[in-house]
């Protein structure tokens, strides 16, 4: 259409999703790394949690980095989810009469899980924040002031661990398609070879992150990580 603005197109929405998604990726990668400190014991973990808040002091006030991160993350989430909803609605409007029979040749499961996977992750984040950050709910009834103890207490509850593991499965799938998709959306994979590399990288990163996150809950449940 003559006079279209590039920023008003579906592809622009996708670029926003890709950028916000990659920011999420950076966050979850760091977060996972931080979580793994649980293996180093109570003090190392709590120190790390504290360090997050004192990072770059005195340039930033106490909790400054965390604050900036939170703002960026919230904005990203709004953008990411907003674009996802917009695209989802477009896709639904683009085919109102479903096929009686439809095969999905050429699609990965991960790619078809993106939307419900995203919703799952969103629900998880809400729960997770209530659990660990905002609400600080300790399902086992213990104290909530000590991050390390909170984590250990929580994951000793089997069903909570299960929720987390399920969420990590979804996150893995989301990243498996999402990372490659973001690279394609940004136009960085114009050859069969670069696409293959991107897909391999996406798979590897997704695996590392979802497994990395899962280690702490699993090892807590298994009793390896203990108070």
């Amino acid at each position, binding site marked *: 259409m003559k006079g279209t*603005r*590039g920023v008003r197109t*579906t*592809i622009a929405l996708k670029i926003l999703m890709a950028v916000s998604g990659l920011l999420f990726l950076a966050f979850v990668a760091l977060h996972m790394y931080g979580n793994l400190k649980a293996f180093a014991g109570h003090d190392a973990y709590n120190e790390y949690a504290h360090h997050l808040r004192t990072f770059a002091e005195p340039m930033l006030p106490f909790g400054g980095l965390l604050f900036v991160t939170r703002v960026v993350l919230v904005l990203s989430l709004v953008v990411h989810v907003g674009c996802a909803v917009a695209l989802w609605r477009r896709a639904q*409007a*683009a085919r109102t009469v479903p096929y009686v*029979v439809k095969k999905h040749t050429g699609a990965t499961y991960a790619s078809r899980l993106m939307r419900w996977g995203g919703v799952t992750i969103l629900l998880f984040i809400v729960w997770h924040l209530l659990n660990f950050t905002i609400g600080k709910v300790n399902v086992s009834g213990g104290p909530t002031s000590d991050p390390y103890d909170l984590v250990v207490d929580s994951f000793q509850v089997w069903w909570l661990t299960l929720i987390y593991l399920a969420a990590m499965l979804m996150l893995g799938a989301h990243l498996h398609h999402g990372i490659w998709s973001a690279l394609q*959306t940004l136009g960085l994979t114009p050859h069969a070879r670069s696409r293959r590399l991107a897909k391999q990288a996406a798979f590897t990163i997704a695996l590392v992150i979802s497994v990395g996150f899962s280690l702490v809950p699993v090892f807590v449940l298994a009793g390896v990580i203990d108070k």
Partner: protein
Amino acid sequence: MKLTLNIWRQASTASAGEMKTYQVEASPDMSFLEMLDVLNEELNEKGEEPVAFDSDCREGICGMCGLMINGEPHGPERTTTCQLHMRSFADGDTITIEPWRSTAFPVLKDLCVDRGAFDRIIQSGGYISVNTGAAPDAHATPVPKDNADRAFDAATCIGCGACVAACPNGSATLFLGAKVTHLGELPQGQAERWSRVVDMVGQHDHEGFGGCTNIGECVAACPKEIPLDVISQLNSDLRTAIRKGH
């Protein structure tokens, strides 16, 4: 071979449609459309209105044909519906035949859809502006072979719409990417490159096609094997266009 066919019947765009079941006797040498011709002759014989479906060249090049066959655009082989042969099926099979499903491709009747949206996408910028008689000598601008080959691969798109039919989002991005890449790879296409991509994507969105989420079913369905390269190219061209203020 004896076959059971479940075919979508719809009298017109405005009316509701439904699946109907037919039996037909086919031979493995027949093309899929010839099998439907045989069914139509029989329906005619019985006084039932034949099934409407599109085809013209029946050689796999005009892009007119296109049926959803057992859930796959153009059926189980990587080719056009007209080039699909009954030897790809077995005696006793049940085959479900539906039209392309896309809001931007309204069903006209039975299995025929209106793909005018593709023409309008081309109108929005899928060309190089050169008036007849205003062209320089063909050898004035050499085109490096690599670019020429990439442009060609993209230019083989026949505009059949299978990519749209396959895409879970109902997106026409593969078609769009093919044209943008074809013209964008050539020196002749540079002048309008950035406005072209923005205008064409805008028209694509305006027609009601979905956005691409890089699922890749389009590529698996494309009879001309247009690669995902073109979508990547499209995306990066759009990004550049935005940067250039379009």
